[in-house]
């Protein structure tokens, strides 16, 4: 679990779009260079077919596929696989600094539930995270689907799971500049749409959670429910509105922020493994 913060720095403070991925058939870690070449050719062909990403200037898309050995939970987990797309200008070779335009990585952090039950030829990396234009995501996804007979699905995060995240990370140790614990609700079925942002001072949210959590390092559903009920009750006392009947769409803490459409931002490296573990679990339940 000792993840080198240097190597994973690029993961932090970026908004990642989440997908669940079914196991990859006959994926060979020794062939990463080959895969990069094939994916690059695929993208070039797609662009020629007219599914151009960049209008106008013809830019070469360079593909790099690499292994992130440290990014895993247990020894059973497969190491993460990172795919990066850069644009290299064909024009001048002088100023040829490649511009990174899209990143996507497959990972599994304590995904034993899935990997235990899968035949040998399959590689389990159930969580896929992307950052960059949707058109690139679509091309990379298509290639992987064709090549490894896998299936991608957007990973939605339910209000139940969002409240787990709030509870889990509201109690984290805070540094001086910690941001508020924020819950964003959307109220459906009204004549005019209404959004409610409920932000709690991080010290006060932590103080509340600390009195609820019985065992450090362990969280129960009951504790999460009590935490949320307390927040709902405080809100109701003032506004007479039943927040529990509204849709929780986004949460933000000093550690992680997450949106119900499956978009996540991880802000601190020490909580990266914990966050990935939770997300891997969500991905696996969506697959099964």
């Amino acid at each position: 679990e000792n993840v080198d913060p240097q190597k994973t720095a690029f993961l932090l403070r970026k908004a990642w779009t989440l997908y669940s991925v079914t196991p990859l058939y006959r994926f060979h870690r020794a062939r990463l260079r080959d895969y990069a070449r094939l994916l690059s050719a695929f993208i070039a062909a797609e662009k020629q077919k007219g599914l151009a990403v960049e209008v106008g200037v013809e830019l070469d898309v360079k593909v790099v596929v690499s292994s992130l050995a440290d990014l895993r939970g247990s020894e059973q987990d497969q190491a993460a696989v990172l795919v990066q797309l850069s644009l290299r200008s064909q024009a001048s070779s002088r100023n040829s600094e490649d511009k990174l335009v899209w990143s996507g990585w497959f990972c599994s952090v304590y995904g034993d539930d899935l990997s235990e039950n899968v035949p040998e030829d399959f590689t389990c990396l159930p969580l896929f995270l992307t950052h960059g234009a949707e058109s690139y995501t679509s091309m990379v996804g298509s290639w992987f689907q064709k090549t490894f007979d896998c299936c991608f699905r957007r990973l939605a995060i339910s209000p139940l799971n969002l409240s787990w995240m709030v509870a889990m990370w509201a109690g984290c140790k805070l540094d001086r500049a910690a941001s508020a614990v924020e819950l964003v609700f959307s109220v459906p079925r009204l004549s005019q749409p209404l959004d409610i942002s409920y932000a709690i001072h991080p010290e006060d949210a932590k103080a509340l959670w600390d009195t609820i959590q019985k065992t450090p390092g362990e969280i129960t559903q009951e504790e999460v429910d009590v935490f949320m009920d307390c927040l709902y009750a405080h809100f109701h006392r003032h506004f007479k509105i039943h927040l529990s009947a509204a849709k929780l769409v986004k949460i933000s803490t000093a550690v992680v922020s997450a949106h119900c459409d499956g978009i996540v931002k991880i802000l601190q490296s020490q909580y990266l493994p914990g966050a990935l573990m939770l997300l891997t679990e969500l991905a696996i339940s969506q697959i099964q």
Partner: protein
Amino acid sequence: MDETVAEYIRRTVLKMPRDEIKTMLQKWGFLSEAQLQTLNFHQIKDNISQEVVQLCEENSADIKQAAVLDIIYNHIYQNKRMWSVYQMKKSGEEVDYFDITDFKKKFKRRLRSALKNVTITFKEYEDNAIWIRVAWGTPYKKPNQYKPSYVVYHSQTPYVFISASVLKSNMPLLCQALIVASNYHDIREMELRSHSLNSLKDIVFKRYSQNFHTYYPKPLQGENVEPESADIRIVQENRSEKERIHRLNWEVFGGGPQPKLEFAQYKLETMFKSDPKLGVLDKKEPFRCLVKFSSPHLLESLKSLAPAGMADAPLSPLLTCIPHKARNYFKIREKKGLLPESFVSP
């Protein structure tokens, strides 16, 4: 014609939707009808604006005229800006006769005595609104025409609506000039902000339908009391509850349209109270929260909360007081003493 003026006019015209350029230029009145006829409005805006600049060149436009065109644009697209409301106070009961010329003179004099480089432009509208545009410079730099402040003053009222530029440091000077020019002695910012200038006016001028605690009209024949179509599964019990909610809503909000606000913000510094059985947080310190409600039409959406089953009726006074307290920013603290459940809003 000054290059910077030409560029400013060009950019102002570019902001306008193509099919509205002609109307705005006519309202401006700086170019003659004959000149306007020569303009081809069926080309791309870039070209239209170039032609307009050419005509302005012929008439030797200066920054003063360009500023008027800018006011016209912003008057029509006032809802693109965020407006704050300020209230002025008089020391005595005297009702001064308002002299527009005197007002303008004093305003300009006060501003210019403090800051040499300012562009000040006035335009009066039919509803007694005086629009003032101020472009700010420094002792060493000419005014920045692209970040002006706009002030809307209805002379028969103590209210001023200001859409400030980013340079907040000019606010004290602007406020001073306003009270000097209008013969008031003090001005304070109200906790009321919105993009909808008309709604802000509705609220402070009390032009919206207000609550009537004593009179609830019987629904007219055929008038649909229940917003959704009648469901045969709704029994008498639910029906009377629906009617109760509807009546309470009517008492609080009135029957007419609500002023259009986009948000309300509450800074809560109240105590956290919970069921002692839960055994949770029991601090003596406030539970600090910031709550923000947003909607394209906030008051209408709040009004529909109780009928939708999302809120208790009557709705909390913290929400229903928004129009008559003329504020949408609140700081809520616990009221000390006999009634621990009530809140104070300073």
